[in-house]
């Protein structure tokens, strides 16, 4: 079975729609700026990829993750030509921090917070009448996990249309604890480059409408891309560090579910969080998975193109996997792959990978793989197919 992506919406530091974001990525335009959310004197890292929408500079406000979620879902519904009424449509939201930032502002500054504000069903009910709503706090694999579970719902006949989304706003405790543990102080997120110093957070929300493919051809129905499979698993190995075994398993599981071989993949949207540990682990696994098999040539110049959008959006946490998927859908359609910004000298493990450097690459693309890995050892990998 396959599933159609019929609507897409997204907001991030570099653009307010999927098309704006894709254009910025292809132009090599980053959302990096000085940290706006908090008192910078309290932190070592002072850069982030924030959405610059606070009403007063220097003062944070609650509810931003929820606001962007509403915006991304509305965009996706409009794009799919669907009414903004989700009374019968499941909405699966993947997030790392939920409304953690609103909780911090409540605790520290006394802004208003009620328990229903902490999960997104409350706002989705108010905005879209949605009641089959689920907030999955599945770290940075959350939105691809939600996509996997959406495909399951459609496959077992529990729904024909599902909205899948992700959202996160930067929070103090998460930003601060990450800042505390990173040995170096990154001034930018530079995935797979020898100069990488770690992860920097970004902000944003993303949503897609996933639908059962119609039994008969439906003229005029626009499909952005087709989901072939999503694999999900857990390393059960370390609370925060990635594990090559678990990542290998999830990528191979996604390929098996999709019925594709590594050689069929034309594009990989990397997790690429810019931490030395992620970059060496992910690159090492992919070098093995995509190593040319017998009869597939000598491997020189072979294998899929690869890119990492976090080099320009920052790590948008729970929504990052689905944002990569939306970018993949546009890349497949346009035959253009954004570069990894700042990549000039790849780490040793990435030496054999076709990472797009400098400027956007053009290529004929049919199948894309999207990686997303998170704390708790959780991994997800999706396979999407171009629709011509």
């Amino acid at each position, binding site marked *: 079975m396959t599933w159609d992506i019929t609507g897409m919406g997204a907001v991030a530091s570099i653009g307010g729609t999927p098309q704006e974001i894709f254009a910025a990525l292809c132009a090599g335009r980053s959302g990096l700026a000085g940290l706006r959310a908090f008192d910078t004197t309290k932190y070592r890292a002072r850069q982030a990829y924030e959405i610059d929408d606070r009403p007063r500079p220097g003062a944070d406000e609650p509810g931003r993750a929820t606001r962007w979620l509403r915006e991304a879902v509305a965009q996706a519904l409009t794009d799919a030509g669907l009414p903004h009424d989700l009374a019968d449509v499941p909405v699966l939201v993947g997030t790392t921090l939920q409304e953690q930032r609103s909780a911090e502002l409540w605790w520290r500054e006394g802004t208003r917070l009620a328990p229903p504000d902490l*999960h997104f069903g409350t706002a989705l009910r108010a905005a879209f009448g949605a009641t089959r709503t689920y907030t999955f*706090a599945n770290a940075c694999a959350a939105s691809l996990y939600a996509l996997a579970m959406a495909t399951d719902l459609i496959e077992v006949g529990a729904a024909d249309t599902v909205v899948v989304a992700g959202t996160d706003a930067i929070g103090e405790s998460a930003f601060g604890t990450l800042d505390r543990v990173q040995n170096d102080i990154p001034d930018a997120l530079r995935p797979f480059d020898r100069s990488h110093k770690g992860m920097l957070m970004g902000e944003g929300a993303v949503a897609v409408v996933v639908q059962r493919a119609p039994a008969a051809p439906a003229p005029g129905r626009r499909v952005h891309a087709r989901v072939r499979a999503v694999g999900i698993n857990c390393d059960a190995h370390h609370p925060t560090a990635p594990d090559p075994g678990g990542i290998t398993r999830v990528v191979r599981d996604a390929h098996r579910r999709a019925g594709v071989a590594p050689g069929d993949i034309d594009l990989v949207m990397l997790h690429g969080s810019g931490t030395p540990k992620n970059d060496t682990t992910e690159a090492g696994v992919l070098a093995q998975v995509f190593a040319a098999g017998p009869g597939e040539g000598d491997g020189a110049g072979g294998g899929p193109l690869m890119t990492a959008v976090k080099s320009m959006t920052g790590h948008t946490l729970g929504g990052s996997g689905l944002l990569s998927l939306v970018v993949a859908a546009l890349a497949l359609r346009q035959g253009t792959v954004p570069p990894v910004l700042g990549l000039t000298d790849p780490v040793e493990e990435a030496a054999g990978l076709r990472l797009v450097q400098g400027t956007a690459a053009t290529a004929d693309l049919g199948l894309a793989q999207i990686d997303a890995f998170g704390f708790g050892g959780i991994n997800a990998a999706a396979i999407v197919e171009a629709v011509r």
Partner: protein
Amino acid sequence: MTSTSTAHGVSGNTEVVISGVGLAVPGITFPDELLGAVREGGFDPHTGLTGREMRHKDRASRLALRAAEPALRDAGLHDGKAFTGDGDTTAVVVSSNFGILDSVCAFADVIARDTVTGLSPLGLPQTSSNVIAGSVAMRHGLRGPSVTLCNGPTSGLDAVYWARGLIASGRAETAVVIGVEPSGDAVTKLLGEPVFDGAAALVLEARDRGARPRAVLGAGAYARGADPSAAVAAALGGRSPDAVSLWLPGEDACGGGGAGPAYGLTARLGLCSGALGVLQCAAAVAYFDRHAHEDAAVLASAGGPADDAAAALLLTVP
């Protein structure tokens, strides 16, 4: 895709059962105590959350670990030393609304006072709500899907529903479901009263794995929607409310009127929030252990008109 149930196939008809229950609930040892049985002793968080394996763990993870192991033992998947099932096909599904709220607020306090240099690097996992699922997966080597729901009053029932779904879709053959709410200053301040400070765990399996079934979770036995009564009606799936042997209502007791005698768990336990649905299922198992007549059915419900939605789940006797 065929409609038959295979290791990696998909079937809406897979019969999923609860095969094990474990509790880390203050003052309680066995699930029948949720329904009023009285024994001496019981779990004490002051003494029960210590030990080498608990070091550096957040309170919610510690409570969850204390509940998960007895559930696995109860299901015959733990020999007292280690998990004996298949880690690759075992999922972990956690429900908690306030699992890391106190950590998050405490870390913000430390930053304000001492800058980030005052933070402990060991706190990093606790900045993400899925720390609990990760802790349980790591302890027992559970490498299947790992899912954390923070979904309001219905969250526990929702977690059971999604765990069932992971098995029905073939993504897992076994699932450990945990509902947990740790107490803390921030949680108490937000709710106006403390949460119950405990955890409940279930083991779910496809019935055809040869599990010892303690309760059945049918396809279509769960519903979530705006109207509590409609959710209950949908979960009953055409059954008369009279067919319900026991109704375990949510914290505001909505929607199940007329559906069997009601027994509210929160009168004894206090606010259970995201743990409630899992506790309700644990209580249902205890009920079926005692009342094995062939048409016994337990209705669990959560959420009311003031919430974003209500959910209901019907459990039937194996």
